[in-house]
């Protein structure tokens, strides 16, 4: 299967591990990814908070590249996913916005390129049966709280990802890998990641309530698909300890890293060494499932 893969800025910086593991999993499953040539920033958070039309135009210039490729756009970063979807939605439903964006780009864009999250194509295109057949290892009963956060699921009429209040796509992948996708209440709560640099006091509170709930629900690790959630929940645990004296040691692992480990890909190639809270104990559950 062929797709245009949009890495996003974080793939080169704070979410190198997400990028590496996504590419490795795609390769192992025979998914063909081509990057749009000279792609640029999707117009994420800071752009939409400062200048809405700029944010739409920055997304659209990349969507237009993918339109020329004649493929669906696949994204692994939840933030890019959300921005691309919002741009498509506004451009296709609001003629005035379409006009502004077309003037900025010097070319008309209709908002029609399909944008899909990597997790979506696994469930919807590859299918769980084919995915299971490709697995060489199992999660060995590892209990995982999958955390979707804000950007993948909201606003629902724009994102259209799974069920906005109780998404299960990642859980289905985890169960298929022989793990236990936990049913827990904070799957779509906001971790405050976007306030990291401005109101770290609040982020500590929001993050702790999520991590504590995962722990109380029996999680041995959390699975995420958003770079902002990952880095925030991962590095925030130190601050929670300093502020509240509670230590959680909850590994925050990308779903693509969990998948990669069950496809027999090495921990280094998946960027597991970049995680701040060590995933070692959780990854010890992973065992070979190939019968000899």
């Amino acid at each position, binding site marked *: 299967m062929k797709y245009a893969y949009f890495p996003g*800025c*974080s793939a*080169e*910086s*704070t979410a*190198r591990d997400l990028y590496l593991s996504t590419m490795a999993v795609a390769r192992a499953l025979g998914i063909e990814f081509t990057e749009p*040539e*000279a*792609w*640029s*920033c999707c117009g*994420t*958070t*800071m*752009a*939409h*908070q*400062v*200048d*809405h*039309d*700029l944010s739409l*135009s*920055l997304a659209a*210039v990349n969507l237009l590249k993918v339109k020329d490729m004649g493929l669906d756009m696949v994204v692994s970063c939840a933030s890019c996913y959300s921005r691309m979807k919002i741009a498509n939605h506004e451009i296709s439903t*609001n003629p005035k916005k379409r006009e*502004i964006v077309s*003037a*900025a*780009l*010097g070319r008309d864009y209709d908002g029609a390129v399909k944008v899909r999250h990597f997790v979506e194509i696994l469930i919807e295109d590859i299918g769980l049966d084919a995915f299971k057949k490709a697995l060489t290892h199992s999660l060995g009963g590892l209990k995982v709280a999958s955390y979707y956060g*804000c950007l993948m*699921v*909201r*606003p*629902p009429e724009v994102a259209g990802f799974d069920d*906005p209040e109780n998404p299960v796509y990642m859980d289905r992948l985890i169960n298929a890998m022989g793990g236990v996708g936990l049913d827990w209440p904070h799957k*779509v*709560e*906001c971790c*405050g*990641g*976007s*306030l*990291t*640099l*401005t*109101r*770290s006091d*609040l982020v500590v*509170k*929001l993050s702790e309530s999520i991590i504590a709930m995962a722990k109380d629900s029996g999680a041995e690790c959390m699975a995420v698909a958003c770079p902002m959630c990952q*880095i925030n929940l991962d*590095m925030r645990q130190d601050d929670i300890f300093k502020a509240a004296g509670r230590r959680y040691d909850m590994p925050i692992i990308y779903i693509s890293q969990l998948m990669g480990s069950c496809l027999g890909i090495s921990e280094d190639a998946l960027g597991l*060494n*970049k*995680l*701040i809270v060590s995933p070692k104990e959780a990854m010890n559950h992973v065992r070979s499932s190939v019968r000899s």
Partner: protein
Amino acid sequence: MPIKIKREAAGQGIIDQVKALSGIDVNACLQCKKCTNGCPVSGFTSSSPSEIIKKLQLGAGEELLDSEIIWVCSSCATCFSRCPMEINMAEVMDALRARGAAKPQGNMPLMNKLLLGTIKTFGRTYDLGAMVLYKAGTASYAKDLDKLPMILKKGKIALLPPHGADKKMVKRIFNNLEKTRKKST
């Protein structure tokens, strides 16, 4: 808690400007407060999303931009997702922030501006570059940057600025939008 508002001298308040910027008509709000109940930050701030809407409806003026929640809102869109009237409060917050960017509160606008600057220059975000400038520009809140050494050690952030983007195109977008804006004002 009683809601106090000052009517703007012109009488209209900023509700029309919010509508012009976001396309959202907050008059449809029923004050059911589902937005506020789901909002992750309203419990920690002195104002709430439904209160902002009520004040807009009652004709509040520029002083509304001093409300803490506008600058603390995390854009999580829980409010919009649960609103029975489908009012996109997250975008109303964006519009208010854009409106208030001239007199910023907190450091969100500065960080946003710095990150945007890196996009204009490189075509992609250069987070480390923006963080260093940010540290130079603020004294308060900068404490979170004590994370930088750990992030660097883990190789969790790129040292060098990004390359490979279609920089010319990105610059053209910035410039074209500026031109359109000048024409319309």
